[in-house]
């Protein structure tokens, strides 16, 4: 499942997509994120399953444009710690 966390407002679209088929719940992204945007919990969208998957915390979901800003310099290459720490490649950003 592709879970999109974030929002769209007048300034653009800001979504972090987590592919729960790929995510193995290893928690490396949780440790890599300097702003503590991610957490690993039971998959709430599939109540009958018991695997753990990563998601964006409720605290950050509606402000990820700002939470993720320190990792996104306006010039130079963008190397997102969450994306790089994810071995299966389950995390992507829309902006």
């Amino acid at each position, binding site marked *: *499942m*592709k879970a*999109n966390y974030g929002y769209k407002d007048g300034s653009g679209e800001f979504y972090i997509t987590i592919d729960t088929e790929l995510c193995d719940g290893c928690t490396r992204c949780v440790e890599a994120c300097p702003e503590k945007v991610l957490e690993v919990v039971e998959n*709430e969208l599939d*109540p009958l399953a018991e695997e753990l998957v990563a998601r964006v915390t409720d605290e950050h979901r*509606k402000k990820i444009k700002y939470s993720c800003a320190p990792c996104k310099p306006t010039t130079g290459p963008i190397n997102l710690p969450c994306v790089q720490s994810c071995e299966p490649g389950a995390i992507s950003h829309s902006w």
Partner: protein
Amino acid sequence: MANSESKEYWRWTESRWTNPDLDWKNGEIISAGVDVGSVSTQSVVMVDGEIYCYANMRTGSDSPDSANKSMKWALDGTELPLDNIEYAVGTGYGRVNVPFAKRAITEIACHARGANFMYGPTIRTVLDMGGQDCKAIRCDHRGKVTAFLMNDKCAAGTGRGMEVFADLLQVHINEVGQMSLVDEEPEPVSSTCVVFAKSEAVALLRKGWSKDNVLAAYCGAMAHRVVTLLERLGVEDDFAITGGIAKNIGVVSRIEKELKVTAPEPSIDPQLAGAIGGALFGKALVEKASKK
């Protein structure tokens, strides 16, 4: 005069129903789903996966109280005691505040499951237009979520936005959709914000626009707003809409036109989808526990 001023144009019809063909005493698994939304609360009781009774009412300021009240109303006259419900699931915005629920499940999963029950296993895309948010969901033939996107940062494209407009134009909420079907489609108002859309509408009324045209402009804006949400996720046939706005022909027909799809007529009140999904999960969780 005072009388017409105090009329609540936004107030939609509350309802309850008991299935005359079912007897709960013959059922094996009695499960329930309670969807405490920001605007409305639904309780659905299912006997072996069939709807036995339901109630749909307005959410008050107190979530536990709304959950209790709607369940009490659903069970009214059925003689089914609350304790006989084996598994109750809470869902929606106030899902953690349902006192008698064994588990809280997110409304995204419940709406997909509910739409699967209501419209059949061919449904792949579900648009839930709720009271204060809007969710685009993709699901498989079992109603399991395969992708989702949610907009809950503002009230544009939601039921509450429509209530604001019903109140502004003094048109009853049930009639808004039909009234907005004008011959010539006007330019939509702002789709980013209900408050801005309302100020635009006030300006249009001052310019002499008719109520029909202002409603058409707002329904168009709302449809456009959710279509951009759906396009990001991708729309796969069959497509269905759940939530209160599914009853608004003005918005539904404009979404269908923009996306070039048709949404099936709901056979059950589309506001119930979340609670139906919750009750079905309740049944599945009872079955899962008994297998262990």
